């Protein structure tokens, strides 16, 4: 352990965990499931270390440049006096500032119970039942054995939130991490979300850093349970700045007739790895996974998805698209498992990519394992450039080449988020992406949105 601490990136963050486990009595260790989880995390990490490109699941993502900084865990009692206006909608704010929960920003909200994980842990002994029943507890869906970042997340287990949706909340829940620091910050958050039978909710997971000089590294692990006939819309906003790095591991377990709809917009954060998996455990569950990357400079987005069909009559559809400029990289790996009992499965996956420069990189890999025979499964992946026939056609109608490019790229990207249910948020995302596309094709700033109105008349 001392060895790890001295020489390996990020390992210095573990010393507090190490100490807490050293000082815990065997009695405490035996009765506190959170301490056990920390220990499991530490043990798993000691065995595997952090991933490198030699690991199959991390093949194209070299983490070295992002983890080498002298990160610090949150310290003290940092407080954000008010929530900065980032999104154009009112929300139920569950906000972490410099890694610490900000309960004062949250007023009692209808339909959702929010519990601070840190508060729960600091209470000392606890039986680990966090969302009503043992089976909806932290560590039930994501095991430290699964993945080194889940192990790290468990080892550093402290800050996070438990959301229990018991009725339909009137507003989207804004699960946000905001940082502002001169020092490199490591933000380790754990979320558990449970939607009770028949409820519907929207959750926005947003990562923001206001720091200009020092990076923030997010390691976020989320476990989500959808009970019968519940419906979750989960929106990942990753359109912040280059100093914002993140590894987000999300697992969703669905029961009968539940629906999940995930949107991921990656367009600005310097490095993002999304490891997203959905288990369709009971009949007629549905999931929709939509992801869009618009990348420039040296940005890296890595989307690993896994959909497991474990019961009959379930449906999954996946659409991931990327526009990759400069020296940026987009990675898509989409696994679909159809287990023998999952008859009448419908599973769709597509991944389409547009490369805008010779140095841009796209890696795409569908992985299908189908063990049932009555299955409709289609998948497709393309990597190409802007269609020059279409560019020429638009130019003959008077559009300058750059405007033609933006119009085509915008239309290509729009397919991913045009169905997003929150209109003001959709329009905001659209505007952010349009600006970015204008920048990427190097169109003079004064043209922006003045001449080109994308809004349908």
């Amino acid at each position, binding site marked *: 352990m001392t060895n790890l601490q001295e020489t390996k990136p990020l390992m210095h963050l573990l010393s507090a965990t190490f100490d807490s486990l050293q000082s815990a009595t065997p009695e405490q260790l035996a009765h506190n499931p959170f301490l056990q989880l920390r220990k499991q995390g530490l043990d798993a990490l000691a065995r595997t270390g952090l991933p490198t490109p030699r690991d199959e699941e991390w093949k194209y993502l070299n983490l070295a440049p992002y983890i080498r900084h002298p990160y610090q865990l949150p310290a003290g009692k940092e407080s954000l006096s008010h929530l900065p206006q980032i999104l154009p909608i009112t929300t139920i704010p569950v906000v972490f500032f410099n890694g610490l929960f900000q309960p004062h920003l949250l007023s009692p909200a209808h339909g959702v119970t929010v519990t601070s994980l840190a508060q729960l842990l600091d209470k000392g002994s606890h039986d680990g039942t966090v969302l009503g029943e043992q089976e909806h507890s932290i560590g039930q869906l994501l095991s430290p054995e699964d993945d080194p970042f889940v192990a790290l997340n468990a080892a550093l287990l402290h800050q996070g939130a438990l959301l229990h949706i018991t009725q339909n909340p009137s507003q989207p829940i804004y699960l946000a991490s905001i940082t502002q620091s001169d020092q490199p910050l490591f933000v380790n958050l754990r979320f558990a979300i449970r939607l009770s039978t028949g409820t519907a909710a929207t959750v926005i997971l947003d990562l923001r850093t206001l720091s200009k000089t020092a990076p923030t590294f997010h390691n976020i692990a989320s476990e989500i349970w959808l009970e019968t006939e519940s419906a979750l819309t989960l929106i990942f906003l990753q359109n912040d700045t280059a100093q914002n790095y993140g590894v987000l591991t999300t697992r969703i377990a669905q029961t009968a007739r539940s629906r999940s709809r995930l949107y991921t917009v990656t367009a600005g954060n310097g490095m993002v790895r999304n490891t997203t998996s959905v288990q369709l455990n009971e009949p007629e569950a549905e999931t929709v996974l939509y992801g869009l990357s618009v990348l420039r400079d040296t940005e890296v987005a890595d989307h690993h998805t896994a959909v497991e069909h474990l019961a009959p009559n379930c449906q999954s559809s996946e659409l991931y698209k990327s526009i990759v400029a400069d020296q940026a990289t987009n990675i898509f790996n989409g696994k679909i498992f159809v287990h023998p009992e999952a008859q009448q499965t419908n599973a769709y996956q597509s991944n389409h990519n547009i490369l805008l420069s010779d140095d841009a990189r796209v890696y795409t890999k569908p992985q299908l394992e189908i063990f049932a025979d009555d299955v409709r499964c289609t998948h497709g992946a393309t990597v190409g450039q802007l269609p020059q026939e279409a560019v*020429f056609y638009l130019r003959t109608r008077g559009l300058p080449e750059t405007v033609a490019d933006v119009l085509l790229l915008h239309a290509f990207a729009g397919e991913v988020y045009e169905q997003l249910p929150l209109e003001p948020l959709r329009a905001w995302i659209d505007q952010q992406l349009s600006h970015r596309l204008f920048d990427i094709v190097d169109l003079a700033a004064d043209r922006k949105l003045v001449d080109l109105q994308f809004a349908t008349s």
Partner: protein
Amino acid sequence: MHNAKQPLLVIENLHVAVDDKQILKGVDLTIYPGEIHAIMGPNGSGKSTLAAVLAGREDYTILQGRVFFDGKDLLEMSPEERAAAGLFLAFQYPVEIPGVSMLTFLRTALNEIRKSNGEEPIDTRTFLQRVREAAQLLGLGNDFLQRAVNVGFSGGEKKRNEILQMAVLRPKLAILDETDSGLDIDALKIVANAVNSLFGTIQSYLIITHYQRLLNYIEPDYVHVMYDGKIVRSGDKTLALELEAKGYDWLRSETLSSIELPSTTT
């Protein structure tokens, strides 16, 4: 009668190659404002190549020759500059633009052209009025305008859509490349009627067609026959009828005997 005016289009001795293969082998053509010209000729003779070169497609190599549009050197201009100057090509094979609605497309195009010409963007009301009138002229419903450009359009809808764009953009010269092919007789009449009713707003047409059929409805002042990359004959509209009667094989033998070409516009 036009000689006092400046010609709208002058093509002089144009030689064009693609991938080292020469396709146009010396084309001369002059079009004055107020004239309708037709180019006929067998498949593969170079008609679409000529149209594409005029519109500014970049995969072609100009080996020789010059082209002037409204007094300006056309070959020096980008496709969008040509559009702004008032040149329009109705494509033989219109291109699909998924995710871009007809309205967004038309308004963007119109405003970019206006911007190039130092004009303000068109106001929404005037724009919608113009587009709806154009749609009506082409027998296309308003829902057509909500659809993505050419996506899922039938062959006939694609052709009518080209003319719809022409009606909205109001160029000086419109080149119609086989706009008639694939149209049934009713659609053909609609298109011909639209072309005729816009004549005036649109100063001149260059109509490329394989068949004489369209010329029953749009009367050309001049008919040219293209064969093997050259205009081998020019005449008035009776030439189209002669071609129809004798077929293109007749040309082949005539060309071999190297006929004297009548000059058309000087």
